[in-house]
């Protein structure tokens, strides 16, 4: 029984972290909150018996993406402390609605019994391990991944390159 309560706790943690990322005033803390969400997600995925994916998620999302965001923030001129203070006040005017909507939606979903008429697919007998699925069945996706990575490299090369002096400043 405690498994379910654990799930509830982890999911609640993840949702709270997500809301925190959205509501948080300063950008830096928002990125940290995002990393927290990612960590919570990893925990949930462990619960859902998807360990490899969880580790991958943790290392890439929590790690790499946070780094990307940090560097972008570093490259851009962050607001001074005072500016962030009065900025957060004005922000609040726009964001107070989110928790209200979420509370309403949560209670509505809890209250109404959603018809679960569909039946889930029967579980496979041969418990294939992760490796051969990825390589035998999903080769096409692998090729896709290679393509995406190549495109990503070009993207980074084109976009992040400092503008060299002779380039026309249009």
């Amino acid at each position, binding site marked *: 029984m405690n498994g379910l309560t654990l799930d509830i706790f982890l999911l609640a943690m993840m949702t709270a972290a997500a809301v925190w990322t959205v509501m948080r005033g300063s950008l830096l803390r928002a990125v940290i909150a995002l990393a927290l969400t990612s960590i919570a997600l990893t925990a949930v995925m462990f619960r859902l018996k998807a360990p490899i994916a969880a580790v991958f998620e943790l290392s890439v999302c929590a790690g790499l993406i946070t780094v990307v965001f940090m560097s972008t923030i570093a490259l851009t001129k962050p607001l001074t402390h005072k500016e962030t203070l009065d900025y957060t006040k004005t922000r609040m005017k726009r964001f107070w609605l989110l928790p209200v909507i979420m509370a309403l939606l949560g209670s509505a979903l809890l209250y109404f019994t959603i018809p679960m008429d569909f039946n889930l697919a*029967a579980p*496979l007998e041969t418990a294939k391990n992760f490796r051969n699925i990825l390589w035998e069945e*999903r080769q*096409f996706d692998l090729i896709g991944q290679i393509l995406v990575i*190549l*495109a*990503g490299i070009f*993207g980074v090369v*084109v976009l992040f390159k400092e503008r060299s002096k002779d*380039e026309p400043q249009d």
Partner: protein
Amino acid sequence: MSWTLVVVPIIAVILLNLPFGEGYRKLAFPAGIFLAVLQSALVLLPIENMFPYGACPLSPFVFLSPDALGLLMILSVGIVVFSALLVGWRMTDKTSRKSDFANLIILAMAGMNGVILSGDLFSLYVFLEIVAVSSFILIAMDKNREALEGSFKYIMLSAVATILILSSISVFLMLTGSTSFSAAAAALKQGNHAAVLASGLFIIGLLIKGGIAPFHGWLPDAYTSAPAGVSIFLAGIVTKTTGIYTIIKLVSYVTGYTGPVKEILLFFGAVSALLGAFAALDQKNFKRMLAYSSISQMGYVIMGLGAGNPLGVMGAAFHLFNHAIFKTQLFVNSAAVEQETGTLNMDRLGGLSDKMPVTGATSVVALLSTAGVPPLSGFWSKLLVIVALWVAGYKIYALIAVFAGVVTLAYLLSMQRRVFFGNISASFSNIKEAGVSFTLPAVLLSTITIAAGVFFPYVFEKLIIPVQALLGLL
């Protein structure tokens, strides 16, 4: 067939960008042209058995031998990439930027081939993302203010579409345990609500990527702000393959031509046909008018699909192909005009046809074909769509299609008058005809348009009739 379309481009890109020596980078352009021509040839000429390797080492399960519509799309991808590369290569100034452009175009082409060939929902998503990512970068390549804004808007909309598509895939996975089309179709046949929700979400995602009426926000900005070569590529084939072709594929392989699906397609097709046509009527910028015109013409295709009878599907497929040809043609003309006069503001342009005869003439061919004037190809495809709608009983939609056609003629004629006829302004008196890299694709495309129109029975019988099979799948 599938081997050459996806893997060879990857190898090409890797070889082209090996770390040592700059010499290789300039080869990107000829490699791209070769791949495009190879691809078109594959479809047109029966050279299937030339390749000695026989069965592709990758398991057939993943690769779907392309159906009739797939072949048609591969052909139009080849033609459009060929023209886009020619124009884009000529227009981008710095050599390093040139090779990036060519490489990204090759990657996107591979992505599109992947989309056409993909056999299941998730790989469809993967290749959609590949094309999307390379398009983001291509649009933002010039790094000027509009290009970045257009690219960011495209990124946001495409991300939302991806989210919807992924959630739909996860629901299908939950219901059927696999991501293949047939499994999803089976779940849908049982008609439980979750499956209907999933297919709905997937269709919405694809409508966003296809730039259909209410979801079309990003399209005009992305097309207009992109550099000339990229906007040819985007307008010519990207939106068609990632958006419209995928809808046809999804509806044919997964949801089937059921009542609600047809109703959705007809309604949103009609809305975008009308909205696109009217918005294009009041435009100042040449490329922006063509962008809205694309939305309108894609609305036609979706309506043809929504008719749900063989005539409709054939009409939609043929119009998709025709539109790829004459829209690319118009964008090539706009690139030529931009190259020569430096501006795209139609109010300042005028009387260019005597200085740029080829561009003027080919633009007239494309304009007449878009408006559906016989004997050009556009006429036949529009005729098929309208007749299909009338035969299927959707008389109001047929009338809307005809009315949108009239408005199309209106704005295209006004464009032609404002840009090519009338009197030339002083500042452009010394311009001359655009270079061969503009005139060659322009002439090639208009010959295809005229040929497809004049030899319609032959083209129809060989390429279009097999598309009917799509209807029989479910």
